[in-house]
């Protein structure tokens, strides 16, 4: 199967690979997996007091499309508010990367990882207040 140029670019030069301090109050962590292929994706966000995503990091073990989807996701959510980031759809990721139909689930994984990271951050903020 041929990957698109954008997928190859993100795969060879992934943006924002790494980890943030999972225990920090201003960090939300989303951990999701794709059962069909055994992929696992971690996406973390660092959120400012006014609800803006200042930093995002990811670590993905999976195919090129899964890595590209999460790399792109971290690029897109940086600088966005939580509410804005939440509206990112897997279809936008899939379209931007020109993912073939069999790889659509990789973009779903990235969308779910963003949502899980935001939910984790909000749950932490709730217990704090």
């Amino acid at each position, binding site marked *: 199967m041929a990957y698109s140029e954008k997928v190859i670019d993100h795969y060879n030069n992934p943006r924002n690979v790494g980890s943030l301090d999972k225990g920090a109050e201003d960090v939300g962590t989303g*951990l999701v997996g*794709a*059962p069909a292929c*055994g992929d696992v994706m971690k996406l973390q966000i660092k959120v400012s007091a006014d609800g803006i995503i200042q930093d995002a990091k990811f670590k993905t*073990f999976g195919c090129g499309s899964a890595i590209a989807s999460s790399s792109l996701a971290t690029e897109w959510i940086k600088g966005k508010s939580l509410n804005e980031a939440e509206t990112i759809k897997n279809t936008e990721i899939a379209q931007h990367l020109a993912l073939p139909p069999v790889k*659509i*689930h990789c973009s779903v994984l990235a969308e779910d990882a963003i949502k899980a990271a935001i939910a984790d951050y909000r749950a932490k903020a709730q217990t704090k207040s």
Partner: protein
Amino acid sequence: MRLRGVLPRLTAPNACWSCGAPVPTAEPFCPTCKSVQPPGQADHFSRLGFARTYDLDPKLIERRYFELQRKLHPDRFATRTPKERQLSQAQATSLNEAYETLMDPLRRAVYLLRLSGIEVGGDGKTVADPALLMEAMEMREALAEARSSSEVDQVVARARSEADAVRSTLSTHFSAGDLKSARTDTLRLTYLDKLIEDARARRLNVA
């Protein structure tokens, strides 16, 4: 829309295409005229003469597979009619699929759950089981950080022993009819098998 009752039924279910005598499901040959039958809708277990159960003896699976394979081999049908050649081919294909599914514990578990209406994989569905994913992430990181073949081997050894343990609890859950736990174990096994497979490629890239 259901077609049953709308379309006229031309033949009784499982009637031999050649002589019309009844043929039991999953029986590759007509008991009356010995003609080879279409593979039909039999599940992988009944095709190899097993009940739907997780605990199967690999040696017995193998024995039954080879017995049937011998009888269905296309070479035996070389001088038969085109229809019989085509049917024996279809039978051999279904038999191979049944054999491959039942021999692999992970595929067997996924298949057994599917027969009970439980999908383990399926595109577009995400797992969010934190304990399972944390374990998967941690082992993946250990594999990615392994710098020598002996370090890779250590990760693989751990994954293998975890996988053995999962296969054994899987058997307990299936025999107790606890399909929810069986599904969780099957997911864990998916991740462990994938890791072991990727470790093979990784091993080639380290000293």
